[in-house]
């Protein structure tokens, strides 16, 4: 955290953000309550929480689609709620991929649809084309599909095209709201691996909204857990999953492998710590086995 705090000019800062839906009606809902967060450069953040915990509301604040009822959000030191702040420009820096993004496809060809974002940024045609091809490559859409109608693609392909539509804007913050919802395990891994690769290229903050603990544990370096409009926990996956009893109380859970390692430790296997991913569990078990046999 200290390393991030050093340069708030590169971060997204949320300062006492509150959001109330439908104030004064029977539908009134305090969706966000006093949120304070610093989202740093290059982080891979997993945002988890139960349905209705305020995750989706929170991310819509980050690119100015929703304005906080009270509080401020600063992007690189500028208040995005300020009148003179250019929201359209912000949205090219903070890319938001909604849930089921394939429902937003509308153009006649894949290339045209992906070009929608960069075109709106007012880039020259050549730059648009380059970004479109690069983005489609990044998400692994093969060239023979470039001129196909997006409506003819399979579910997983559609989703990747829709993600490319945001990637082509080259945002510094890439936010994905449950990008794997409704996909089969293979489609899910494909998308998540692509996202991890995109993050590994550097200079991008990725925020992955999910309620699969396995997914966020595998990829994220920092977890933010939301509950009833509050930040319930914020830390590394290990720190957060140590709280698995509290997580269970709010209807979440740690990854299966954390429970397994906990059980193993109870049964007398001397693991150094609880594992959060399968790969880590393997390392720990091997270390224990080697240590024991020596």
């Amino acid at each position, binding site marked *: 955290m200290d390393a991030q705090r050093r340069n708030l000019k590169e971060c997204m800062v949320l300062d006492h953000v509150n959001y109330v839906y439908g104030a004064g009606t029977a539908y009134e809902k305090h969706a966000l309550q006093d949120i304070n967060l610093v989202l740093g450069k290059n982080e891979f953040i997993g945002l988890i929480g139960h349905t209705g915990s305020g995750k989706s509301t929170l991310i819509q604040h980050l690119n100015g689609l929703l304005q906080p009822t009270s509080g401020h959000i600063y992007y690189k030191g500028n208040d995005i709620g300020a009148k003179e702040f250019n929201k359209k420009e912000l949205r090219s820096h903070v890319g938001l991929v909604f849930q089921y993004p394939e429902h937003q496809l509308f153009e006649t060809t894949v290339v045209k649809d992906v070009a929608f974002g960069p075109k*709106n940024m007012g880039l020259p045609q050549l730059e648009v084309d380059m970004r479109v091809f690069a983005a489609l490559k990044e998400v692994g859409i093969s060239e023979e599909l470039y001129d196909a109608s997006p409506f003819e693609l399979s579910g997983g392909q559609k989703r990747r095209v829709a993600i490319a539509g945001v990637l082509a804007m080259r945002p510094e913050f890439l936010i994905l709201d449950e990008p794997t919802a409704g996909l089969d395990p293979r489609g899910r891994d494909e998308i998540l691996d692509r996202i991890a690769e995109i993050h590994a290229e550097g200079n991008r903050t990725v925020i992955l909204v999910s309620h699969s603990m396995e997914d966020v544990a595998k990829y994220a370096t920092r977890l933010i857990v939301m509950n009833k409009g509050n930040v319930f926990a914020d830390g590394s996956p290990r720190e957060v999953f140590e709280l698995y009893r509290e997580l269970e109380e709010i209807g979440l859970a740690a990854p299966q492998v954390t429970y397994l390692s906990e059980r193993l430790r109870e049964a007398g296997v001397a693991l150094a710590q609880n594992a959060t991913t399968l790969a880590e569990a393997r390392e720990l078990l091997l270390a224990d086995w080697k240590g024991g046999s020596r």
Partner: protein
Amino acid sequence: MIRDITIGQYYPVDSPIHRLDPRVKLSATMLYLVSLFVFSGYLGYVLAIAFVAVCVKLSRVPFRYIVRGLKPVLMLLIITLLFNIFLTKQGTELASFWIFHIYDEGLITAALMGLRLVLLVIGSSLMTFTTTPNQLTDGLEKGLRGLKVIHVPVHEIAMMMSIALRFIPILVEETDKIMKAQQARGADFESGKLLQRVKALIPLLVPLIVSAFRRASDLAMAMEARCYHGGEGRTKMKPLHYKKLDYVGYLVLAGYLGLVIGSSFVPFLK
């Protein structure tokens, strides 16, 4: 902004009006709307306002929420007012400039027409605020079942209406979502010239229509999977039965009608 559309939406609180049988509310709404156009004289207006005010108070739907429902008819309201003000040429002239002449009769007619329109919208939206689409359909189906004799497909009409009503909030939400998704890709729905604005709607309308068709086919599939085959032999989980409250409702309605009709014969206050 798009979420401000409140017409046809249910407002979930518990109140005597919410508990009324939908048939009572349907007939009350119909009769109220008719009554708005048959009475003459100021007393009628007083009665109509009083009636709807009592209903609104009883329904516990916030007045502000109901007023928001007036927004979509605002344009119509303004046009009605202007036409009545400028096209009525009776009474004494109050002001005139160029080709426009304003008469006192015109002002009065405009005010009364506007009032009628507002009462009309409030009266009918109060029913949808206090009745779930399901109740509404049940009420309509049972209330109109006499028409089956002359082969009116009452059940089908009721089902179509309830699906249409049910889809309003869904499509509003969907519109909101797609709008945001396109805004996140830099779409601009709020500025530019007319042609640009119309063009800007394409990224919104295409996905919306696609999604409406998808939802329609999903719904048809789900209905089919539950062996829906029209109204023949269908039974209800919650059959409608009149309770004491409903008879009271009918009595109040009859009282209101009596008063309105009576008020037309009162010689003064015309």
